[in-house]
């Protein structure tokens, strides 16, 4: 006899709205003529996200551990993370809407006649929008999922569209497809690790819910708990590109169409860190003696490795990929802190980092030569002379990544390091500031190239941005500046929302 599960639709509505929007997007693909699709899809995506955001606002004070039986917990931190994902997605969709970054016909082989004719016909791959919405829905589910199966489903829901999106670059298609395949294969491995770990945890605790695992901690056969935690962590650390599970990041960041890289870099981090924070704070807090040394070590290696290897990069997208690896290390300090301040700091950091990342990749998409986007740093020389405003904005975002005072990145770094210090993890703080000092070097090198070097003949120029990317870049930059000068509003909000319920 099956009983119908009880669902609190109001609390699930933000996710459901996005899913419904995605399904509607698929229908638009089927029934609307090619000419109108882009406009309709864009409107639909933005409308869906706004509607979802509005629903989130309505439930902002509610919480429940049984929103979908015991699989989803809507609480303060969950709502903050979901809102962050939606806000970032709203800005990202404007970048994605510049479809000239994407392949005209994904099914055409690179270099084939089909590809040529699709380019001539100016066809557009508008399926990108529903894929994007599915990914957003998965990202919203991931940080509120509270059992291992739902976590796994959410992980796949947002990962699969991303694998596809990564392969859709219009230029350098083989590179893009290679990166998509690499991302998919490594992602599949990571998922397998996650499932393997989940099985061990189930074997240990007899339940798949995080609260149940937490309650079972301290029982006999700790080794199974340890194995479970380690393998689940591997799956999660892969998604946030922590060392040593980072190897896909530079390739995918470089190969994917830049707007997708922007979306992925910003939103995946929020979703994956949201889930990690919940899993470790709620599910594994009681067994912290097991995993804290391991995650601390991973954080330290990640910070140092990301910062050091970024120095050697000559491609701006790869450089930002390594920088995002370093930032994953900084964010892991917030996970290891395991206190309320650590959670609040992580929430702030994710928000600030997400917008700075969107802005930076948004600008990268504008830097082109006759054959398309140029991410080779050597050809960025003298950009400051040609387009001072764009170069200055990019420099500001880089300084924010570097954590110079009066930028959002500094406030985030300060918050997260003080939480780490508070938890007694002084080594992490010292390594963190050293890594920041190393990282400053390569950020500043880009600024030198743009401002202190004279343009050469084959250096690049900035295309006139479309209104959409202009809006998204301006929003990202303004948020980064505001959060640097007057961060208290968001800090207070993050503080109020820094609460997981069990």
């Amino acid at each position: 006899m099956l009983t119908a599960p009880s669902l609190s639709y109001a609390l699930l509505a933000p996710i459901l709205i996005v899913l419904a929007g995605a399904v509607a997007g698929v229908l638009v693909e089927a029934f609307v003529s090619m000419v109108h699709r882009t406009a309709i899809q864009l409107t639909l995506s933005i409308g869906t996200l706004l509607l979802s955001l509005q629903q989130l606002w309505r439930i902002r004070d509610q919480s429940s551990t049984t929103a979908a039986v015991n699989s989803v917990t809507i609480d303060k931190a969950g709502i903050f993370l979901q809102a962050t994902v939606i806000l970032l997605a709203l800005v990202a969709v404007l970048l994605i809407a510049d479809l000239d970054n994407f392949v005209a016909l994904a099914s055409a082989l690179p270099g084939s006649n089909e590809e040529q004719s699709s380019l001539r016909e100016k066809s557009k791959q508008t399926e990108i929008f529903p894929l994007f919405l599915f990914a957003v829905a998965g990202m919203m589910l991931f940080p509120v999922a509270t059992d291992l199966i739902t976590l796994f489903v959410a992980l796949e829901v947002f990962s699969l569209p991303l694998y596809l999106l990564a392969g859709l670059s219009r230029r350098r298609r083989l590179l893009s497809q290679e990166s998509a395949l690499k991302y998919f294969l490594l992602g599949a491995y990571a998922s397998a690790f996650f499932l393997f770990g989940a099985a061990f945890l189930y074997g240990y605790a007899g339940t798949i819910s995080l609260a149940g695992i937490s309650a079972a901690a301290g029982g006999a056969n700790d080794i199974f708990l340890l194995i479970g935690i380690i393998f689940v962590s591997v799956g999660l650390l892969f998604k946030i590109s922590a060392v040593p599970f980072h190897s896909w990041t530079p390739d995918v960041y470089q190969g994917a169409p830049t707007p997708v890289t922007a979306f992925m870099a910003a939103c995946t981090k929020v979703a994956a860190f949201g889930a990690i924070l919940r899993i470790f704070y709620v599910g594994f807090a009681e067994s912290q003696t097991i995993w804290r040394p391991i995650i601390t070590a991973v954080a330290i290696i990640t910070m140092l490795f990301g910062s050091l290897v970024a120095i050697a990069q000559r491609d701006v997208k790869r450089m930002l990929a390594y920088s995002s690896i370093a930032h994953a290390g900084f964010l892991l300090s917030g996970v290891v802190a395991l206190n309320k301040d650590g959670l609040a700091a992580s929430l702030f950091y994710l928000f600030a980092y997400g917008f700075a990342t969107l802005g930076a990749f948004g600008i990268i998409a504008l830097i082109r030569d006759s054959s398309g986007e140029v991410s080779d740093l050597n050809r960025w020389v003298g950009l400051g002379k040609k387009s001072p405003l764009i170069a200055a904005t990019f420099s500001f975002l880089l300084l924010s990544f570097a954590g110079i005072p009066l930028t959002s990145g500094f406030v985030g770094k300060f918050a997260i390091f003080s939480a780490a210090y508070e938890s007694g993890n002084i080594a992490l703080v010292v390594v963190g500031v050293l890594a920041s000092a190393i990282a400053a070097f390569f950020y500043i090198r880009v600024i030198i190239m743009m401002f202190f070097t004279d343009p050469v003949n084959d250096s690049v120029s900035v295309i006139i941005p479309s209104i959409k990317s202009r809006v998204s870049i301006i929003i990202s930059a303004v948020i980064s500046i505001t959060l640097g000068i007057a961060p208290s509003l968001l800090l207070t909000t993050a503080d109020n929302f820094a609460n997981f319920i069990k």
Partner: protein
Amino acid sequence: MSLLTIVGLLPLIIAGIISVLPSKNNELIKRIAFAGSVIVALASLFLAIGFDKSNTSLQFVQSNAWIPTFNINYAVGLDGISLVLILLSTILVPIVLLATWHESDGGRWSSKAFYILILVLETMMIGVFAATDLFLFYVFFEAMLIPIYFLIGGYGSGNKSAAAVKFLLYSLFGGLLMLASIIGIYVISGNQIGATFDLTQLATLKIDNRTENLLFLGFFIAFAIKAPLWPFHTWLPDAAKAATPGTSVLLLGVLDKVGTYGMIRFCIQLFPDASKTFTPIIITLAVVSIIYGAFMAIGQKDIKGLIAFTSISHFGFITMGIFAMTSQGMSGANLYMVNHGFSTAALFLIAGWMIKRRRSSTISDFGGLQRVTPVMAWTFFIAGMSSLALPGLSSFVSEFLVLVGTFTRYPIAAVIGTIGIVLAALYILIPVQKMLHGPIAASNEKLTDLSLREKLAISPVILIIILMGFYPKPVLDLINPTSEKVVVNAGYTDPVAKVVK
């Protein structure tokens, strides 16, 4: 709103006005920037007039919540030490602007950007000395690097880009170490008295020895890089050579003082026990700086490099005076900061004029300037004499106080330090002889003497150097009470009777 805030904001407002002017109108921009900086200097004089010398607590205080989540406040206030350093900054800026009227013309960017950078820098210089909230100080301390970085890299000469980066990375590295210490002391305050960045409250914390030593080192290394103390000095000669003379004046005259100021304000006040522990090492480093800087200066062929290394030697004196922990040493060090600011300003500005006229910065390219350009030669001579601490000129008083203050506690260090004075005579007199005297070197015959603008710019500096040499009392009156308070608060008493004023 305190007058201090207004003085601090003024340069920023003027920078805002300049930013909306058309960038073609260079002359107008220069005039507005200069007039604005004069107004700032005059406004800062009102701070000095309104300052109550007998009161050793902070004055012109203002505190507004900035980031309440971390209890960070916009908190500013003045004591004697910070007041004189702010005066030094606000007086030097208009002099620099007037003296280097055409400095920005050949830069990578427009003159407009140059003046905006200078004025933004001035706001930050005032802010860094006025801040009484540790976090606010840090923000100014780090943010200050950005304008100076662009000033060196954009308007300097020679290997400017590399020098700018070296400067920035050294400073950032130090700053980030300090950030770790700031986080540390912030968290400790949270455990003891409720999280705060207020300096007065932070000074009351009880920190165990090991932690205190580590936190102290975080601060000290940052300040030693800034000051710069041997062996953290290597960025300075490069930066000073590459920067324009005006930027060098602000860099060595004011910005580097943040290092020594920070040692007094933060290292000693927040970590008195650790300061005691490390004093022998620091005094040693200071003595090494004095001697090393002097020897390197003697060996310099480049006039800007010479001035940079003399500064390293002088910063050694200042650091020695600070960590001697006597009220004479402390007062002397504070006075030295001011005097060094003015004598370095004079040296750099005049050297800059010489270099511009001769199109060379190599000392041996000059000769016989005394006969060709007497005014330029005489002013350079006076500035040089002040730099070697000739009695009757300003630096003498401070150097004497530092040596007396150090001798009572560390006689050996003071004795070695006096060797530095002897060497100073060498590193100043040799170039003076080569450049100003002797036969007129080839292609020096046609050099023109100082213009009216240049004379106007340099005369107040020379005047201050002479006045402060004969009558340092007004400045000492501002400095002495605070210096004594610092020494007493750090738990020291003077080994001998106070110096008679």
